[in-house]
């Protein structure tokens, strides 16, 4: 009788830290839907948390110069971001954290909300 209980406990302990931990779903979070075929699914889609950015910048800091006020209207991709366009204007390691292989999961989070 005790064996399955211990097994379940061990399973929870081992799986627990692997489960995605993400910020709360806040109004304004935008999932940047991947365009084109993507069957691999190895990388979650990027989520833009509007509210984090609103604590530091007014709307007109980014709109409409960097981003159109319509989700999906801009062709945002990692090449453009690395070239310093769109998110890359700030996310260069100076104004905000840089785009790199150590920061993928800061945007590519397993949460689908707000859009």
């Amino acid at each position: 009788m005790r064996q399955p209980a211990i097994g379940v406990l061990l399973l929870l302990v081992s799986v627990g830290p692997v489960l995605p931990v993400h910020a709360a779903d806040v109004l304004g979070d935008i999932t940047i839907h991947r365009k084109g075929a993507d069957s691999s699914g190895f990388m979650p889609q990027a989520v833009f948390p509007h509210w984090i950015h609103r604590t530091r910048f007014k709307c007109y800091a980014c709109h409409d110069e960097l981003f159109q006020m319509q989700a999906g209207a801009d062709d945002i991709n990692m090449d453009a971001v690395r070239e310093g366009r769109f998110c890359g204007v700030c996310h260069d390691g100076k104004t905000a954290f840089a785009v790199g292989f150590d920061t993928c999961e800061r945007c590519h989070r397993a949460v689908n909300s707000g859009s």
Partner: protein
Amino acid sequence: MQWRRCINRVLIGTLLAAMGLGTSCTTETRHKILTVVFEDMPPPGQEQPSKPFVRKPRRPPPFKPPPPPMIRVTAYKPAFNTDWKAVLRKLPKYAAGGIDWVTALEAGDIKPQPGIDPEHAQEQPVLPLDVHLEPPAQPLFKVTFPHKPHTEWLACANCHPKIFHMQAGADPISMEKIFAGEFCGHCHGKVAFNVTTGCPRCHLALAGPQ
């Protein structure tokens, strides 16, 4: 015996010249003559040479390329609080949930910058203009649109003239269209407060007498 006599004569000559230098010349002349051979000899009246004598190098020193400039990699250290869960907890909320951004800005909880470059960013004007919109024959559903909290966040060109005409009443605004994402629905329900915040938030008369 010829060479020995020759050496003798040279020796005697040198001795006589040395004696002559020692007795007849002035000290300045002697110094001048002697420094031809003994370069680091101190001038008369000085014990030690004034400075060490440095010979010019016979050939230029070998060219040494300068070291490459050092690249200092500084770790990204933000000057703001990045504990976003704590930041979210502190932000003022509506009773129905959702962040009350206008109160957060007025209370000074947040200081959003007008631009990305803090030096060249320009604060946009805040317009204290209330626009009253009343649906025909429905005074209860009158809406008071306050420009002030909107212009604290947005520039004029964000809404005018793409989303709203610059003439009050010129746009056929309806709740149906707002829910479909037109007019106020461009932001409200997406990044600004949604319908759960309550109708009187815009339809002031629905709140009843205060």
